């Protein structure tokens, strides 16, 4: 039953991709997606292109997808391993949500970091104590890791 849902979502993602996001299924595994997300305008990640992986578990959509940043990113809700602290990826997941809504929520998280619900404590502390410095570190990481050399 899940295969039809995955099929429909995959088709919609390629036909009508969410702005600034591309998600392509792996050639060998239709549950694994290669995601590229552009840093949102006005955020310290602007100008960067971030790679993510998204995997749909066997019970998808009754279980949430697993998503992880592959590109290094300086963000209070994303840890060193690229794991993301986002409620809809955990207990607030609903089978009515989709890959599209998940990716849009992650994009929104880049625009609005939440240092009060941190995953990376050192980053969150920096964000709370010296936001200006935190933003400048995030910008420099974006330049260093997320800007493809032309």
């Amino acid at each position, binding site marked *: *039953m*899940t295969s039809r849902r995955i099929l429909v979502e995959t088709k919609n993602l390629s036909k009508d991709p969410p702005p600034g996001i591309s998600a392509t299924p792996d050639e060998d595994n239709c549950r694994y997606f290669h995601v590229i997300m552009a840093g949102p305008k006005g955020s310290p990640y602007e100008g960067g292109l971030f790679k993510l992986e998204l995997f749909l578990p066997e019970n998808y*959509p*009754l279980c949430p997808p697993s998503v992880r940043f592959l590109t290094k990113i300086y963000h209070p809700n994303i840890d060193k391993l690229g794991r993301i602290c986002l409620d809809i990826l955990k207990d607030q997941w*609903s089978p*009515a949500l989709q890959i599209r809504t998940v990716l849009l929520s992650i994009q929104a998280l880049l625009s609005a970091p939440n240092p009060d619900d941190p995953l990376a404590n050192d980053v969150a502390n920096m964000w709370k104590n010296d936001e200006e410095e935190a933003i400048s570190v995030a910008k420099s990481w974006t330049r260093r890791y997320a800007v493809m050399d032309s």
Partner: protein
Amino acid sequence: MNTEGDVDSDMECSDNECFGDDSDYYNTDDIDIEQVDPSKNDPEYFEFECLTEEQVERLLNESVELLSNNLQILPSLAKVLLHYHNWNVSEIIGKYRENASQLLINSRVKPSSAPASNNCSRYLTCPVCVLTHSSDKFLSLNCGHLFCKGCWTIHFEVQINQGISTGISCMARECEVLVPEDFVLKLVLQPNIKEKYLQYIFQDYVKSHPQLRFCPGPNCQVVIKSQDTKAKRATCSKCKSIFCFKCGIDYHAPTDCHTIQKWLTKCADDSETANYISAHTKDCPKCHICIEKNGGCNHMQCYNCKYDFCWMCLGDWKAHGSEYYECSRYKENPNIAHESVHAQAREALKKYLHYYERWENHLKSLKLEKETFDKLKTRINQKVMSGRGTWIDWQYLFTAASLLAKCRYTLQYTYPYAYYMDTGPRKELFEYQQAQLEAEIENLSWKIERAETTDRGDLENQMDIAEKRRTTLLKDFLDV
């Protein structure tokens, strides 16, 4: 019930106190017991029952029936309401009469906004599996969010496998409506998952019921029930676990639930620092020979020079007599406020170690005394086998040993209590009583270790004194 022997000895009284025959004697006795409020004499008095799973089911079902009859609602909805309101039937009925709709929204039975409207077409597409089925394959809760039965089933299986039961909610985004028991049971067909669900939901119900507690004993299914939800000592009739009814951990009088939690966390955090003191050997303060502690009693006698000393403070045992037993009391530095931060930290550690060392030491004594007692049992067994007395003759020793354990257990839990007390007359009184209790316990322990040569009357007298000290302290300081 009295044995005949006991009755005979009790009947040795003057004529005006005695009653004509035995039945009158028993009757009066019973009335006397009823008239005395046992909670007045025994600060640890606690009325509770040990229930089986079936008895608990019956008890819960009585509330469910009462509520569903009273409000004319389905039993499964009544369960959602009861779980949400900690099984307080009258509170639910009151709120229902006041504002039924608000009660149902707050309890997550009804959605907070108007239910989703559904078109009545013959075919529908399920938003989860995106498959189209005939509309009779769809179900919704009070919120009207329709999903196909297959998706509901998998949703329940996924949730149950994560240990969720009463908390399973509708699949729609941001919909808070909870799924009642009968809805789940209708759709979950795999017997092992159904079994798990029933088990989890039962656990949730017991946990939300203020009068019920699971026995914390390993693999024990017993549920303890009491009207009195205080921090009292409950004993499981099946596995004999002794625990605090309020917080469910090891019983901890006279310390309260919050303080013991704080103390145990502190001990766990500071275990490294406290480790060095947990040695089993110390040097004799007089001849400096190395002495190993292998009994529970803290009254030590050097095997070399026969010096009597205290294991805790290494002071002369004679000074530990019935007068003020200084050993248990921590002497605070009166000028500490004027000392450097470093000195204050050192003092704080010293104070903690003083209490920790005694806490830890009595815990060890409890274990060692258990070993002593096991050895004693073996020796008594040999005596009985060789015809020197019967088990009944030696019964008083077993009673003495279990009383010693009970007293030492309370003594152990007086240390966290004292650690968190403010200095002042109340603490002085506490430490005075603690010292008295400690002295009598060590006397009792000394006598039990030498039980076969101690006079029985002397031992029984010592038991009585120790228990009196224990109840005195609890009466004055156990605040539940």
